[in-house]
Structures are given as C-alpha cells and as structure tokens.
C-alpha cells in the first residue's frame, strides 16, 4: 500500500478511543485505523496512558467471594458467537476492501449520476448523518459543493485530488462546515471512497443541485 499522508486528527482519534463518535464516523475511523499504522500507534498511546492511570490506582477491595466467583465463571462455556459476517454485495465483490468494511452491511447501490454509484450503510437512521460508499469513474470531476457539517472521506481505491492536495488509498480528508471543493478523480483507475457526513452536502452549481435529489446525499 502506498504511504498514507492524510491522517485522522488526534483529538478525533481520542473521541474514537472513548467511543464518542457516531456510528458512521466510528466506522470510517476504524477502517482508516486498519489501513494506517501511524493512527494505530496513536490509539495504542491512548491505551498506554489509560493503563498508566490504572496502574497507579489505589485498589478498592473486591467482595470476599469475588475470586471464588471468578474461578467458577471461567469453567462455564462461553455463550454467544460473534455475528456472522454479512454477505458481500455483488457490486463489492472483487474489490480489495479492508476487513472492517467486509464486516459491514451495505444497502443496494444506486446510480447517482453517469459513472457514479453510491451505497449506504445498512443501519438505522442516525439523525441527519449519512454514511455511504461512493464509486466514481476515473477521470471524472465532481460538482463543487459546500459542507453543512463535518464530512469525512476515506479513499479505499483510486486517487482523487482537490485544491488542497492529492488523496490516495488510506488517506482521510475532513471537510468542515463552510468548506467547499470540487474533487477530481485521477484518470485510469476508478475511485471508491467511504464517506461519513454529519449533514447533507450542498451543491454549488445548477448541475449539482439538479443531481442532488437523485443522489440522496
């Protein structure tokens, strides 16, 4: 894998560590972390910090029968298997997806525009937030759009660029409220991204506005 140069902000990672992110953001961060040794190291630092505080805790006595109970519990068989991995939808077969996304259920894909398909995560609605895969044909340009809330994009395959830089697989880009950009997909390879948005995007151009109802983003 090429070197990842756009990481998750460490305070956002800290929120992830404490599980303060919503489901879509958590999924995106977990996927990036699977792809990115740098951010895994950062999470390990958080665990090491927590462990240092745990180590220094003055102990509080357990109940008198605690050890007896503990030794009895390890004799009992483990109940409950981990849920089976969801079936990989046809449109994702043959794509080298990170394991985190292999374990994630997606709805049927739909075509948002010629050369662009999307597939939403198959989870209950979580406020205004949206989490979806977007697949764009190599060489395409996306309409300029604004952001109404934090939007995170993780590149899975292919490459795209905007006025801020070039993004390759594993790179994570955050767009804050008020940011606007017009991503261009590099020619030659299709680009698949995972996107976690806190609010729908706002297209700036007439074409984008026309496409929006169809795109459902």
């Amino acid at each position, binding site marked *: 894998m090429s070197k990842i140069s756009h990481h998750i902000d460490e305070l956002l990672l800290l929120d992830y560590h404490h599980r303060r992110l919503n489901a879509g953001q958590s999924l995106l961060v977990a996927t990036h972390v699977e792809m990115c040794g740098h951010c895994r190291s950062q999470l390990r630092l958080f665990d090491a910090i927590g462990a240092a505080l745990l180590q220094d805790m003055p102990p509080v006595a357990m109940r008198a029968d605690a050890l007896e109970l503990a*030794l009895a519990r390890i004799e009992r068989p483990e109940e409950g298997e981990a849920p089976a991995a969801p079936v990989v939808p046809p449109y994702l077969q043959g794509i080298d997806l990170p394991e985190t996304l292999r374990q994630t259920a997606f709805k049927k894909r739909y075509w948002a525009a010629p050369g662009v398909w999307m597939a939403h995560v198959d989870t209950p609605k979580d406020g205004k937030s949206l989490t979806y895969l977007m697949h764009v044909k190599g060489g395409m340009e996306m309409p300029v759009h604004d952001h109404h809330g934090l939007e995170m994009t993780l590149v899975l395959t292919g490459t795209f660029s905007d006025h801020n830089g070039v993004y390759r697989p594993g790179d994570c880009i955050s767009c804050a409220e008020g940011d606007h950009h017009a991503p261009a997909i590099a020619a030659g390879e299709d680009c698949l991204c995972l996107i976690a948005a806190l609010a729908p995007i706002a297209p700036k151009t007439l074409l984008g506005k026309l496409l929006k109802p169809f795109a459902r983003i």
Partner: protein
Amino acid sequence: MTTRMTAHADKKPFDPDTFLGSSVAMIVSDHTSTGRADGSPEALIVRIAATRDRDAYAQLFTLYAPKLKAFMMGRGLSANEAEDLAQDALLSVWRKAGYFDPSKAAATTWIYAIARNLHIDGVRKQKRARDLPEDLWAPEPDAAADVAVIGAEDARTVAVLIDTLPPEQIEVIRLSFFEDLSHGDIATALSIPLGTVKSRLRLAMMRLRTAFDTGTRV
C-alpha cells in the same frame, strides 16, 4: 528519535525489568531463559493461554480486579457496577488470552483496553461484532518501519512521562482518560475555553508520543 527506531528494529527481547509501575515490578520474582519473569502479569496471561492455568488466573485476578474496580468507580460506576465490570473484564482476559502478545503490549495496557471496551459497551448497550483490544494489540501484519510498536518498555515510559507534564496538562489528561469527560465537559469543569483544552491535550500527546516515536513520520 532515530535511536528509538533502531531499538524497535533490533527487536529486543522482552525485558522483565521494564514493566509498568512499581506494584508489578514487586511481583517479578524470577527470570527465565527467555528473559521473561515467571510471575509477571505478562507471563501469567501467557500461561493462561498456553495451559488454561487457573492458578495464574487467580494471581492475575488478585492483582488487577481491585485496581479495575477502583478505576471504574472513578469513572462514575457504583461499587457494585465496578465490581461486576472488573469480574467481566478478567473473564474476558481468560477467554482472549490467546490473543495477547507480550512482545507487543504490556499486560496492564491490554487489560485496560479490554475493560475500556466493556465499560463503553455496557454504558451504550451496544454490542459490536468486533472487539478492539485483540485487533489493536495484535501483531502487525507487516513490520513496516513507520509502525510504532509499544512494548512493555514504552508503556512504562508513558507512565513516567505523564509525571513530567506540567500540572495543567496532567489535569486534562486525567479528566479525559480517568473521568472520561468530553473536551467540552473538561472546558466547563475547568472554566477554560474549549480551544485551551484542545491545545493542552495536543501538547501532552506530543510529549507522551516521544515515548515511542519511530522518528520516521513527518
């Protein structure tokens, strides 16, 4: 920074003298030929994984359950809830012991990660298909130069470095990790701007990261 990288690249044998904290060091009684102490918590988990050693489990339970209980009470659980969580966490340690790799993680760090996940799952009533600890602390598939491995030694360095931070940084670290407050709640608790909380956290992280920076990252 570069010297840290060399130390990691050399894959030093596990050093029993560099465990986290003093209470752990006290129970280190014997050094085996592999350089691992028999009574160390790391060795206890390895014994549990290898032979389902109930005696090792009893020792580990006695060492960690009272600390976990204290820690979780600090996070706002009642004594009963904290006791139950300590029980559940140690039960998970028994079941997941096979995932533990003493060359990658200190026992305390690994146990903390398990307890943290249990706590959050309990609070949110939200079951995840995948648990974090064994994933996060599993051996790196490829020992890429830019992947920092935090062994027991580095975890101890983190503990030492926390004590060297300025008091206002220790305070935000404690409120974030120990009391589990959000950045916004920390700002309210200390009556300081959110930006100040964030900059203190960033400064503290920058300092603590030197415990295991590989020096290859920009």
